[in-house]
């Protein structure tokens, strides 16, 4: 019906997070002041650089929507990358090595889920602990050194293009589509929002809430493991500290993209915009010769600003002084 279509359109427009406008502003600013920023090769570069981040940010969206956090993703990704590289170095076929990396990620994801949901540990501390464990394992397995000599198969795959689009962007897009399909076409979307917005309602509806909640963390771990494919392909090696701190970018991307911690609202489109925003910010600052350390600092400020905006919006929506 026409009115439903219009309502739908209006709904989509309203759901574009403020980050969308921020992204446009950033692109314009960098295009103006940065030489070589607004070129196709550079935009492709942004996409390629951001593809690993997107793989992490997608499940992080779900986790944050359910009032959680996963700080271990970077360490788990590094560990998975090391595992992947080691197996390749030992001559195993690519799909076996990838399965191993994904398995490692999945194991940590399930562990996180059990710690947070079953044992009831606060998410940031629990994942801080698994961060240490994953990091430690990676260091121990490699003795702090890179794992090189992984052969040509993976780097070649990484450098390849499918219909002119770089491999990593294709993978990232596939992941995005998979998550989008899950969230919009299956019950997962409703359940995730309910986890954050009104967990009681989900329990009353007779859903296995705990199992589902653990599954979200498991997805986070699994994606961290799968992202090793891209990371190791890009570096042509596995390094134990390669992805340390990437979870911070993922958290930043999700928050900047408009997902809140406690209300169950959040969109994958918003996270995508958040990932692009962070990518553009880093790339643009690079072009302007701003050192990467300051880039990190500026992302930190951006996250805090996004949090403040989010909590201001929440406070405006609630009548002051009211009690539940």
């Amino acid at each position, binding site marked *: 019906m026409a*009115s*439903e279509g219009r*309502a*739908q359109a209006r*709904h989509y427009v309203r759901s574009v997070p403020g980050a969308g406008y921020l992204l446009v502003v950033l692109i314009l600013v960098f295009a103006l002041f940065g030489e070589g920023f607004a070129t196709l090769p550079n935009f492709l570069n942004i996409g390629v650089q951001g593809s690993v981040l997107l793989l992490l940010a997608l499940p992080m969206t779900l986790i944050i929507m359910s009032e959680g956090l996963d700080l271990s993703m970077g360490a788990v990704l590094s560990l998975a990358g090391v595992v992947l590289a080691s197996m390749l170095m030992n001559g195993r076929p690519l799909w076996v090595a990838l399965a191993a990396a994904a398995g490692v990620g999945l194991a940590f994801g399930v562990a996180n889920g059990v710690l947070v949901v079953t044992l009831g540990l606060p998410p940031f501390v629990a994942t801080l602990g698994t961060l240490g464990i994953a990091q430690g394992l990676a260091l121990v397995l490699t003795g702090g050194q890179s794992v090189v000599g992984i052969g040509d198969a993976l780097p070649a795959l990484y450098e390849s293009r499918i219909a002119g689009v770089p491999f990593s962007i294709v993978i990232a897009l596939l992941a995005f589509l998979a998550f989008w399909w899950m969230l919009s*076409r*299956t*019950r997962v979307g*409703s359940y995730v*929002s*309910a986890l*954050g*917005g*009104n967990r*009681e*309602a*989900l329990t*009353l*509806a*007779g*859903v296995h809430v705990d199992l589902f909640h653990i599954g979200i963390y498991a997805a986070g771990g699994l994606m961290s493991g799968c992202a090793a494919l891209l990371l190791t392909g890009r570096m042509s090696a596995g390094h134990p500290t390669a992805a340390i701190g990437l979870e911070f970018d993922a958290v930043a991307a999700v928050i900047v993209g408009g997902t809140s911690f406690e*209300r*169950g*609202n*959040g969109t994958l489109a918003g996270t995508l915009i958040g990932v692009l925003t962070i990518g553009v910010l880093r790339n643009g600052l690079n072009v302007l010769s701003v050192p990467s350390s300051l880039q990190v600092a500026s992302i930190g400020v951006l996250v805090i600003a996004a949090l403040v905006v989010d909590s201001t919006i929440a406070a405006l*929506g609630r*009548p*002051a*002084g*009211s*009690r*539940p």
Partner: protein
Amino acid sequence: MRGISKAFPGVRALDDVSLSVDAGTVQVLLGQNGAGKSTLIRILCGAHHPDAGEILIDGRGVRLHSPADARRLGIAVIFQEFSLVPYLNLAQNIYLGREPRGRIPGTIDHRKMHEEARRLLDGLGLDADTRTPAHELGVAQQQVVEIAKALSQNARILVMDEPTAALSDREIARLFDRIRALKQSGVAIVYISHRLQEIFEIGDRITVLRDGRNVASLAPSETSVDGLVRLMVGRQVTTTWRERFCDTPGDVVLEVRDLHAANGVRAAAVDVNAGEVVGLAGLVGAGRTELARAIFGADRVVSGTVRVAGRPLARGPAGAVRAGVALAPENRKTEGLALMRSVQDNVLVAGLQTLFPAGWYRAAIAARAAADVISRLRIATPSPARLVRFLSGGNQQKVVVGKWLIAGSRLFIFDEPTRGIDVGAKAELYGVIDGLVAGGAAVLMISSELPEVVAVCDRAYVMRDRAIVGELKRRGSRSDNILTEENILRMAMHHGQ
């Protein structure tokens, strides 16, 4: 429901209570706070198990082990706190957990879900788009979605708990239209409300509970507002718990004028004098706790004045405490006590600035002050170091009151001070209050127990819909201005315009 009895530790909530509803009728469940209504409803929806009695649907006995059982049997309850997920749209909310399946396994048939939701909402007369997120709807509309959710589960018995509490007059009218439509389709409705006017408008039968027992079951035509009030209140109280009521109040301690607060309190004016116990009566939701919190500074004041001993209060609880105001909150466990700390620490927490103005804590002085309070109030604890969570309810409440003794407060605001406390502790608490006002302090006491208000207070304000609607005194010229349970109840309920 027949012969339902239920006891909780220390209190007999229900004693051989029966409630019956016919299909297509509205049965009103009426009773004061604590009469047993919510316990009965919770048994009906499967959250509690009765100690005795049975539940029959269509004449056949059923066993309800859990809320899921109740829902499967067609019982749906709409509480005051809604169970909607704010960022899901209406159709998603209605079908949460029961989404219609699509062709590909695991997917949802969105079109069917929205079509069905549309059908339900149209049947209830709500024209909101099924794709709007729930949080964008007003309270009245959210309520309709809740009803739709219940209907989608083929509810045959619908329980509504205070459904009109947050609705405007026009929304109430539309709700009643919907209820009439539901009656036509054969749904049996149990309707809990305090609003007597509405009861006469929408109810087919009225069941009155009092003190956990059935008192009456009659048709609206057989009674009147006054009749209902008398049934709810029962016997007149003759005993009093005060040694001596206050004939000559002292100076003004609290003066509130035209107070508007962010929590909804409107145009409140209160006077409390030294030596008086002033009651704040009304029904649940009338705004008494909100008024207390606004006076204390716990909630934001929008306009108006609050003066203690002639001086306006500084902002926030800290300012109130400094001026000598004390608050014993309604939820003593979550707002009045630190359960994981000792009796001594709890008793001292409000008086730290008074005892040690320079900021240096001296254990000996602290211990002595705490021991003094413990003995004055006769707090039963093996030692001051015992964690508060191990104390009985009555003793916990004494700790809540006791922490203000050290602070030297002159105005005590008590919010439901004797709730959940056994008779002996209650008497002791009244003695404490007596002692406080005898010493020149002033007390403002919120209570939902009408006999208590009448027996303990010198005067009482009655609140309704977040505003003060009247004041009752012990002695007066007109019979309907005297402090009696009937008068309180009459003022507290909707009684004509």
